[in-house]
Every structure is written in C-alpha cells, then in structure tokens.
C-alpha cells in the first residue's frame, strides 16, 4: 500500500476496485462470498484487503459491512436497531417448539429427527421442520450411516446471516455447552418420544405428543 500512495495511477486503480466492490455488495440483499467478489475484479486483486478497508470505512456509519457465514454484506448498524426495529407479524411468530427445535439443530447438527425428539422428550409435530425449512434456516444433511439410514438436519448459511453469526462457532455459549458434555448425543435410558429409534418417522400419524 505504501508504494501505491506514491503512484497516482495505482491509487486510482485501487479506488476503482473499492468502488466496484462497494457497488456489488450494495446491490445485493444477500451476502456475497470472497470468491464471487474476486471473480468480478481483476485477477490478482487482494479482495480480503479491500474488504477490510471497506469495513473500516463503514464501521462508524449507519450502514456497516459485516461478515456472516455466507459472506459479506451491508447491513444497518446494530446500535440503530431500537430506531429501526420492526415488530414481527403475529402470523410469523414461531412456536416454542419451532424455536427449540431450531436451537437443537443448530447446536447438535447434524442431528436426526429421532435425536431431536429424544432431546425434547416429545414427538416433533408436523409443520415444525417445515416452517424452519421455509424460513431457509435448515436443510437436510447427509444420511446417517446407521440402520434405517435416517436423514439428518443441518442449518444453512442463511441461518448464520439471519442471526448475524460468522460461523457456527459463534453460537452463543456453544463452547461451554460442549465442554459440559451437553451436546453429546448419548443414548437416553428413557425413550420418551417416538421410541427414540431412528427409523424415518413412517406413520403420518405422528401428532403432537401432547395432543
């Protein structure tokens, strides 16, 4: 950078790249990863360095450049939240079951439905995973190589974006929970929910356990 300053052309070129990056990130509502951004700039551009400069420039402003799991994006500044906050529509409010299920998937992923049920102690009602998937927060992961080959569930990049997390390591308290052994999927003695067996829930009859 030092030598760039001496060279007006290099300064000009760098500024041009910064402007292009700024425009690309501004235009998109979704995060963009460095690879995608690099693909739009000249070869051999140090994208990480430019992004850092942009981040610093925007840090004190009302709009910040932030990095979440999915990549970089402009977002309104966190401290303005009280002035911008929009109440969630009542219809969009998530049930307690959905909120807990999302947390279990986030902290225990990849996790099968039967494991979710063992942790919560109740069958997962229809519509819970559905709504989490519709929100773009979870997706099916790999099948577990155990009898029945149950499907696992994992969180998405959009989940990280939605909750402003850079990675899953930034989940609140995740290290403490892991250290306390509370993220173990140790088998439970008390098979409360759907038997705890990992067969794909075959009967459509699985209703709320408390129904």
């Amino acid at each position, binding site marked *: 950078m030092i030598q760039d300053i001496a060279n007006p052309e290099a300064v000009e070129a760098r500024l041009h790249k910064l402007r292009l990056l700024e425009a690309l990130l501004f235009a998109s509502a979704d995060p963009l990863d460095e690879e995608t951004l690099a693909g739009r700039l000249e070869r051999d551009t140090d994208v990480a360095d430019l992004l850092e400069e942009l981040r610093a420039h925007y840090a004190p402003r009302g709009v910040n450049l932030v990095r979440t799991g999915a990549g970089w994006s402009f977002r309104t500044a966190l401290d303005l939240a009280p002035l911008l906050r929009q109440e969630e529509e009542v219809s969009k409010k998530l049930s307690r079951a959905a909120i807990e299920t999302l947390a279990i998937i986030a902290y225990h992923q990849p996790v099968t439905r039967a494991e979710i049920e063992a942790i919560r102690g109740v069958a997962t009602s229809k519509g819970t995973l559905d709504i989490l998937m519709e929100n773009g927060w979870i997706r099916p992961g790999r099948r577990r190589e155990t009898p029945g080959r149950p499907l696992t569930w994992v969180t998405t990049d959009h989940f990280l974006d939605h909750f402003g997390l850079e990675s899953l390591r930034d989940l609140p308290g995740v290290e403490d*929970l892991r250290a306390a052994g509370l993220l173990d999927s140790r088998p439970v003695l008390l098979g409360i929910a759907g038997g705890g067996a990992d067969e794909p829930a075959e009967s459509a009859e699985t209703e709320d356990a408390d129904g």
Partner: protein
Amino acid sequence: MAPKPPKDGFAEEGAGPASPAEQLVLVLDGFEGPLDMLLALGREQKVDLTKISILQLADQYLAFVAEARKVRLELAADYLVMAAWLAYLKSRLLIPNVEDEEPSGEDMAAALAFQLQRLEAMKEASAKLFRRPRLGVDVFPRGAPEDVDIQRKSVFQVTLYDLLKAYGEHKKRKEGGVLHIEPVRLYSLEDAVRRLSELLGRMPDWATLSSFLPDGVRGALLNRSALAAHFAATLELAKAGQVELRQDGAFAPIYVRRAARQE
C-alpha cells in the same frame, strides 16, 4: 406431602385463586410433554440442575399425577408412562442395589438428570439465539436490491425447499386422487332403524327408548350420537306406522312399543 401445582412462566400467575383442577389444566397447557414438565418441577427445587434430587423430583411428579387423577383430569398416555417409569426409578433408588442386568437406580437417575440438563441447556440456547439481533427485525439488508447478476449460478430462483415442496405436492396429488376421510365413528340412523326393528319384534310392550340403546358404547360423543340416531329412528318407524311413541311430559322418558297391527 401436599401436591402443589407447579408454577412456571406459562401458567398465569396471580390470576386469582383457581381450583386445583383449573390450575392443573393451565399447567398442562404450558408443557410440551412430560420431560418439559419434569424440568419445570425441577426448577422448583431452586437448585442447580446438576444437584437436583431425582428422588424428590419423582415424588413431585407422582404427586402431580395423583392430583390430576383425583380431579379426573385426562392425562395423555406419555404422562402416565413417565409416572410409571418414575415410580420404578423411585423403587430402584430406595431399595439397595441388587446384582442384576438392569442399570442401577443411580445410573437411571443420572441419565434422567442429564436429559433434564440438556433440555434446559437447549431452552436457554434458543432464548439466547432469538435475543440476538435478527435480520429483518433488528438489522436490515438493502431494501431495494438492484438487478445485478452477481451470482451467475442463480439465474433461476429455486431453492431446495421449492424442489421438495413440489415433490411433496406432486405426491399429495397422487395420493390425494382419492380423498381419505377419517371414518367418523358415529351411530348411523340406518343402523338404529335396523336395530330397533329387530328389538321391537321381541318387545311388544311399552319400553323406554333408552333401554334400546346399545351397551358398551364407548365415549360420550358416540353415546350421544347413538341416542340421537335411535330417537330419529323411532320417528322414522312411527311415520311408517311400525311403532307407537309416548312421552308423559317435557323431558320425560320416551316410551316405544310395536304398533298394534292387523297382521
């Protein structure tokens, strides 16, 4: 020990003195199954969950179930399964360890304690997660994204959810070609007519309508539908001239007998 209904964030506090039954119902509504309830009961001990007394917890739970039965509150099966399991656990904890294949009472108690701690941890984690600034609630993306083709791969906006939903809907249509209606377990008029016609042949004198009702009908709904069906059936049969009806006053029993026919 007097069973005290547990208080938790979901039951309304300070809503005035409710009857034990009402409190139980309130309490049950707030729970997602017996483990959830055990956790709430455990919090009542006001100790760290790692130091919780499982024996005391079992007592609390069993007292709750006993109270629920006393006020004839219908408990879902899994609440009763849990009660049975806790009663068993209690006996294993109280009786000195015998050498057998079964896990010891202490192991079972530890496993339950672990489950409760893990559930508690996940509840706290979910609360923390949702206290974070959320996109679209606290923090906002560009409100008017510009039409720039940045990710060339997504010329078409299709998500995995769209794909799976499309397949689900396709399957639904295939399955749904025939509408499956839950069999409705109600007593039908046809059955009542058939039944009455048969029984009346053997019962020439006045008899109350209720004495014609089938025995062993389970459930209030089915019972009511049987009564309604039989009543309607007597009207049908009376219209056809096959029976005579009599009622001595409003709400009095209805009597039925075979019509005196010239056969």
